[in-house]
């Protein structure tokens, strides 16, 4: 396996009495797609928040490209090349699509005209080229997801954290966006994706981590993970794996 670009080591995060993350560790190699799956409430978005600098861990470290980035604020991480999308999309509602992506482009391009051109190119990549002048709040859910992706891409990241980017999309929209994601990986961008849409996980991810109740309970390639009884139980409840085996036996 290629060397780990991102390394999360034993990260814990406490909120008052609740321990949302318990010594969770994961790694993501450069230019590969890694998936983070798990039942609702497992702490996946919390882990993303820690990796992207929105939360400080109570314990543990995050390393990126050889640097210790634990606790660095989001804007510094963006400059390092870590970009993220949000589970609940956060467009700049009053601005046009073009101006939305422009904000991302400005990270690496100071001059406005240059940044606008970069933004336009990114928009083409995700399929928003003909909607540049529309106000962001007029986009459909699928459009907003693309916009979220475009904004993050405009920052020219080396690591892209996608938080349920496929949620709320219908099957044909999913079919359209999966190749875009695969294309990003081909370009050399490492991707870590939180996802519930299992077909996408199976077809896109090369390595999968499973988070349940704040702990990493399994990891491996998609086929291995799906067969893992601990994973089945995390999703379906205790004893479900045994029941499933019993059913299969008949």
């Amino acid at each position, binding site marked *: 396996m290629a060397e780990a670009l991102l390394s999360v080591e034993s990260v814990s995060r406490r909120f008052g009495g609740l321990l949302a993350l318990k010594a969770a560790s994961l790694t993501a190699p450069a230019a590969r797609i890694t998936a983070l799956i798990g039942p609702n409430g497992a702490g996946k978005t919390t882990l993303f928040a820690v990796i992207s600098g*929105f939360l400080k861990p109570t314990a543990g470290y995050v390393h990126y490209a050889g640097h210790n980035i634990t606790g660095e604020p989001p804007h510094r991480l*963006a*400059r390092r090349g870590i*970009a993220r999308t949000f589970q609940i999309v*956060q467009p700049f*509602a009053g601005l046009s699509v073009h101006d939305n992506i422009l904000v*991302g482009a*400005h*990270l690496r391009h100071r001059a406005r005209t240059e940044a606008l051109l970069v933004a336009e190119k990114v928009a083409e990549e995700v399929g928003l080229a003909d909607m540049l*002048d529309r106000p962001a709040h007029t986009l459909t859910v699928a459009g907003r997801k693309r916009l979220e992706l475009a904004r993050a891409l405009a920052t020219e990241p080396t690591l892209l954290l996608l938080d349920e980017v496929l949620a709320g999309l219908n099957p044909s929209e999913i079919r359209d966006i999966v190749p875009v994601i695969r294309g990003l990986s081909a370009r050399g961008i490492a991707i870590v994706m939180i996802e519930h849409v299992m077909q996408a996980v199976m077809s896109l991810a090369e390595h999968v981590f499973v988070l349940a109740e704040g702990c990493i309970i399994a990891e491996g390639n998609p086929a291995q993970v799906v067969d893992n009884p601990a994973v089945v139980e995390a999703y379906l409840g205790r004893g479900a794996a045994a029941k499933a085996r019993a059913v299969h036996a008949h």
Partner: protein
Amino acid sequence: MRGVLAIAVVIAVLAVVPLLVHSNVVLNFLVVTLMIALAGQGWNIIGGYGGQYSFGHAAFFGTGAYVTAILQVHYGVNAWIGFLAGIVAGGAVGGIIGGLAFRAGLRSSYFALVTLAFAEVLRILASVAPITGAGVGLLVKLDLRAQSFQFQSRAVFYYVVLALVAIGLLIAQWLEHSRFGTWLIAVRENEDAAMALGVDATAVKLSAMVISAAITAAAGCFYVQYFLFIDSSIAYGTWISIEALLTPIIGGVGTVFGALVGALVVKSLGEGAKLVTGDVPGLDLMIYGVMLILVIAFAPRGLVGTLTDLRAGLTRRFGFPRKTAEVVRG
């Protein structure tokens, strides 16, 4: 650029006015209106473009005013140097208040409250401190020479404040087309999303606050030169906090001309009301209160903002006027 051209045209039109109008009453009205517009331009930077609604911009107006007045009255400093010192002092106070507020992560209501509180603290301190003349206030000595920043003719004051307003317009224009401005607007729209895209939100807000405070402080310095008198309720009173936010909101938050249009509209209505009903105190502010509510209810983007929206709507439907991207590239 089209924007700069528009500014030049507007300033040119306004510059012609004193050549046509000789009534002191009207010129006085226009000078005060432009001064309020200047204060509003300051508020517009942090409130309009930055989306952080300050209810205490009097803190900067008053600091500019007092610094220049104190330097002239107590230390014999030249009025123009005092003017610059007042602007710098105002900006510094903006940096302090903004630094404290933004580092503490204050947003929305809490930010409005803390700015209000700072302005009040300054007002009370100014009303008792000997250096500000306490309850009596400060009188700047009459010395009608250009080097003392005092002029016999009201028209000259008009041109000075018009020049300041022009600078304000250019600053707003620069903001709209610069990376800094784009970042500031992004922070306004969604601070978390902006941070995820590499924007140092705290630094951006702080810088905007300093610029905003400096511009409003300039209005305060001008007040002193024009009226030659300042006291705590004029310098740090709620009247200027309200007028500084009212004018851009009515004229158009987050637009280049918003504060100017707003000041002209608001002040004209105020004067008009006084002419009709006689000079009863409270009437003009009553009207301002009503206008504020009506604008928020029916035209929250203000006059200029609503016009821009209409224009954008026409563009989408009929393809004219030209699209933004074309304009920028062209």
